[in-house]
């Protein structure tokens, strides 16, 4: 664009997470130059040491809030960001570390650390949206890089990202896959899971693990009944929902129904 003044400034922030989602951005390889061309990567500790203070046009936030320090830091990030997009299961739902929400953190700490005088942590892992306003949530554990580029491109041109929140099944059917739940009897969370992975697991004869979180209107209770009919035990039903998206409301409620 000829008339563009300064490049929009992009920041990538990390909270409690594994870095996998940030890596999706670095993993863009072919497109990374185009990203660097379109935006000024002003803050991205994973990729470069340079740090620019001030404000950002678009902040991508990875990770969940698990400490009091981070709870304060996200307020600062929000103040500095014109648009704030959370990326991944941790930032949008609390991540795998939200398993602590179902247990006693003190008990974990005493088992894991010899000296726990220096451990300061909250009892829960919570999504960013529980703390500050969020402009868009990109799901996935990890996120899909194609979708990440779509979100960045959409924000740059001021349009709504084309990220559907329907089931994985629709992606599975667009691809022409044979449904493995129907034809093989393989348990699959696809019907209650948010699209975005292009039905990756079902395309390789594995049931969907739900790693993009709940779809827009998940009927987990009805699916669970069917999975029980396929022979899934109660304990397994608890575990299928209590994974990367354990703390997302629909999965949390459903796993609790199967908690002994």
């Amino acid at each position, binding site marked *: *664009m*000829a008339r563009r003044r300064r490049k929009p400034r992009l920041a990538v922030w990390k909270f409690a997470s594994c870095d996998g989602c940030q890596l999706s951005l670095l993993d863009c390889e072919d*497109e990374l130059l*185009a*990203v660097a*061309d*379109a*935006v000024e990567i002003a803050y991205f500790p994973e990729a470069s040491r340079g740090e620019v203070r001030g404000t950002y046009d678009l902040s991508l936030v990875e990770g969940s809030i698990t400490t009091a320090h981070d709870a304060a830091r996200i307020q600062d990030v929000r103040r500095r960001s014109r648009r704030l997009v959370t990326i991944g299961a941790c930032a949008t739902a609390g991540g795998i570390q939200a398993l602590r929400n179902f247990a006693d953190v003190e008990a974990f700490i005493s088992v894991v650390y010899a000296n726990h005088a220096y451990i300061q942590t909250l009892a829960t892992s919570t999504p960013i949206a529980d703390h500050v306003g969020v402009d868009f949530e990109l799901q996935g554990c990890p996120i899909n890089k194609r979708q990440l*580029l*779509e979100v*960045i*491109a*959409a924000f*740059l*041109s001021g*349009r709504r990202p*084309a990220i*559907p*929140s*329907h*089931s994985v*099944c*629709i992606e599975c*059917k*667009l*691809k*022409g*896959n*044979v*449904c*493995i*739940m*129907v*034809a*093989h009897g393989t348990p*699959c969370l*696809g*019907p*209650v899971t948010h699209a975005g992975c292009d039905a990756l697991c079902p395309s390789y*004869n594995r049931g969907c693990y739900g790693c993009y979180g709940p*779809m*827009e*209107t*998940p*009927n987990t*209770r*009805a*699916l669970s*009944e*069917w999975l029980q009919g396929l022979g899934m035990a109660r304990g397994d039903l608890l575990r299928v929902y209590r994974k990367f998206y354990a703390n997302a409301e629909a999965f949390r409620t459903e796993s609790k129904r199967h908690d002994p």
Partner: protein
Amino acid sequence: MNTTSDLALITPDGVRRLIEVLTARGYRVIGPTVRNGAIGYDAIDGIDDFPVGWTDEQDGGYYRLRRRDDAAFFGYAVGPHSWKRYLHPPQLRLWRAERSGDDMRIIDEDDEPPRDAFIGVRACELNAIAIQDKVFLGGPYVDPHYRSRREGIFVVAVNCAVAGGTCFCASMGTGPRVGSGFDLALTEIVHDGAHRFLVECGTDVGAQVLTELPHRPAPPSDIEAARAIIERTAQSMGREMPATDVPALLRRNLEHSRWDNVAERCLTCGNCTMVCPTCFCTSVEDETDLSGATAARTRRWDSCFTMDFSYIHGGSVRSSTRARYRQWMTHKLSTWVDQFGTSGCVGCGRCISWCPVGIDITEEVRAIHEGECDGDDS
């Protein structure tokens, strides 16, 4: 139009030759083939790709391949794919745009699809194609993408020799005997003698193709055998649509409690609409690149089970599962008639088999029908 004298007999070798002839005439031949535990429709090279000796067992949310005790080519019922995949592709880029300076240039996508020959098209599927013809070609707005795929096809239909566990074409008046819309129609006879196929010509092109195959006139005994096979299929349907005026039944029952009942079971996953051979809805997605220099618009299948489908300013009109299931079923069975003059359902049973939780359109209609009969207004 077709008198008995039009009926010919070919052998399995004749079917092999048929694929060769169609390929030589420039068609891409699409036919049934075993693919990841089901019989789907894919490009095939010859009869070895057919699901020889395979059949299927189907029920609500259930499909399994089973061995037959013979070497039938077409001894199965319809599977997860329909011909819609080829005539109305799941995803299609419509156009691209490029910016140069202050100008923008729209570039139409070249849409020159291959000319397809479909082998193994069933009666319900011919009816589904006829229904989509009305949708895409019938009104003032013709879909050019459908038309360019539809125009040149060659159809080899097959009269069903087995009914699937979820089939109900007989009660919809759409099968199992093929009526029209084919170039050639086969009836496979595997028992009482050699493996053979009764052939009926539906068009002049079909008749020309037949002349290129080794064939002989069909004896009356085989014509009778084929008739008996189709009759037996009609008698062994796995499902049945209640014999009542279904469009009127649903119109009267838009507030029936059964919609709440089915909403408890339905996952709003959209599988039923994806597998349905008549569902035609699409959505368009626009994308732009990072620099803002190019844009593209893609069309893809959509479903009335998604929230985006009925999204207007302020939210989705059909946000409850009840409203979405009701939209789907009343469109298929009732408002489709007002819109296109036929039912939107051909009784293929796919939505029953491929619903992950086995929701059965015939059972839902029956529940409403029986509820009404037992109720006050009966």
